[in-house]
């Protein structure tokens, strides 16, 4: 367990001294800032009160557009985790230290979840803005559920990204594979719009995470999503461990 912490700490350190962290954070904040601004503008222009809480709901889960930047950011955040170690050769000292593959994978994963959390933290300022400027009080329960949902999406996306970084030979390939899987699942969600019947549509939307944030941002904690995210993550982490271990054979 000590090794997990040591590896995670180094990874976080290394991420935040790399330019990639600042590029991602800047673009991220800029992008979501603009989206929030536009949404706020739209809500302000709409007649009728009581829109403040809805603004946050709309921002975090009102549109599937919310996911599109994540499909790009998640691969960029996770691509270096193991692929960089492999291409620079530092994987050799890492894997010859007396630590298990499980520790390495969990350490890297913990670091990735830390980036994810750090990137979302500034959006709390949007909540603060709405709470300050709005006439109605913010529904703090819904906010809690929203951030739980966001974290759960991170649990899913970061694990898939880590797995791709474990199998790909370089970072670009890792990013592309992650994008392919996350994007692919997202597109499956689109199939729900085809005339496939209600049951099948629910399945598609569920797989593609289209409705996850819509539900959580309203304050509905749908445990099916939590279970889905966690099981995909567990599978991806297990496969990452296997990928690292089988790498010793070659």
């Amino acid at each position, binding site marked *: 367990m*000590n*090794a997990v912490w*040591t*590896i995670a*700490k*180094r990874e976080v*350190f*290394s991420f935040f*001294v*790399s330019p990639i962290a600042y590029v991602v954070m800047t673009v991220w904040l800029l992008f979501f800032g603009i989206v929030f601004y536009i949404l706020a503008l739209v809500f302000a222009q709409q007649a009728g009160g009581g829109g403040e809480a809805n603004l946050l709901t709309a921002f975090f889960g009102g549109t599937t557009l919310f996911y599109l930047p994540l499909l790009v950011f998640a691969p960029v955040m996770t691509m270096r985790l193991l692929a960089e170690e492999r291409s*620079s*050769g*530092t*994987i*050799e*000292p*890492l*894997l*010859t*230290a*007396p*630590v*298990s593959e499980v520790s390495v994978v969990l350490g890297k994963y913990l670091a990735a979840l830390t980036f994810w959390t750090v990137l979302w933290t500034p959006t709390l300022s949007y909540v603060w803005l709405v709470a300050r400027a709005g006439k109605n009080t913010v529904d703090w329960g819904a906010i809690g559920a929203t951030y739980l949902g966001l974290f759960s999406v991170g649990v899913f996306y970061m694990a898939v990204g880590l797995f791709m970084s474990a199998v790909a030979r370089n970072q670009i390939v890792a990013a592309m594979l992650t994008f392919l899987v996350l994007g692919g699942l997202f597109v499956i969600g689109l199939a729900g719009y085809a005339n496939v019947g209600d049951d099948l549509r629910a399945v598609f939307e569920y797989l593609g995470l289209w409705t996850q944030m819509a539900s959580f941002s309203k304050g509905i904690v749908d445990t099916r999503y939590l279970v889905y995210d966690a099981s995909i993550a567990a599978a991806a982490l297990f496969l990452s461990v296997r990928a690292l271990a089988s790498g*010793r*054979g*070659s």
Partner: protein
Amino acid sequence: MIEVDNLTKAYGDRLAVNGIRFSVNRGEVIGFLGPNGAGKSTTLRMLTGYLTPTDGSIRVGGIDAISNPIEARRFIGYMPESVPLYGEMRVDEYLRYRASLKGVRRSQLKARVDASLQLANITDVRYRIIGQLSKGYRSRVGLADALVADPPLLVLDEPTAGLDPNQIRQVRDLIRGMAGQKTVLLSTHILPEVESTCGRVLIIHKGRLVGEGAPSTLRVAQEGRQALVVEARGARDAVDTLLKNTRGVRGILDTVVTEQQGAAPLLRYRLEVDSSEVAEAVFAAVAAAGLSLRELHREQTSLEDVFASLTTADAAAQHAEPAPATTAPADSDPKPGASV
């Protein structure tokens, strides 16, 4: 400290390491010698657990390294070839990270990092960023990493690659200084390194162990094949006959005409002789024939000759005690010896 049996690593049909067997005792300094691509790094990578062997067994410190890899790795301080490091970290941060990864207690962390910095002689770059260090410093950071958890066994893959002559001497002194306290297994293709630091040498070629022993005994094993270099002026046939008939000369290995000058060219011979005393007989014979002699010296068998004869031609098929090859490779220069 290390017991390796039938160690094999296959990549498809190609055997990178083919049934190697050796053992290393506590406190020994062992050199792993072989040309590039012989399987040295692959063997060390299997020992340190980076690669899983296709076949065979490895015991490190009495622990089965294949069924219990993490425990076995605790014994080992490993410095990989080309020394991969995190360029964005400072030396001090990196060593702290490595020490804590290797299970050094928090309370001992600083002391261990200080000690390894000192041993590797890099205390002056302690707070520098690794990516900005020269190759010599980087490789010594790798050495400090190997030493940081104070392991009983050091596995160093080409530890002096990229160092300048002074640094090479420092590293050799450091390794020699550890003999007796630590077991050291180092790989190299530089022969003087082995002669100056190692108590025992394992010669590996094409994935097989082709020679084993102390540097001095390996040299002695080749002593049966003594060569004498003679440079004399005279008609070629006459000199040939004269030398062949001198007592103790087994035969002429090769002849080079170094200076063509009418009927009496300058000829350079390499003779296979029974012992170095034959030089005296050759001198007497040449003098008696009234020929002029420009040079006469013994060719000393160096470890390089042993290495060359073991790792060229079909020597790979042989094992352990080497049978001397019949001819030395063409590129082996005559060694400076006693000239008359």
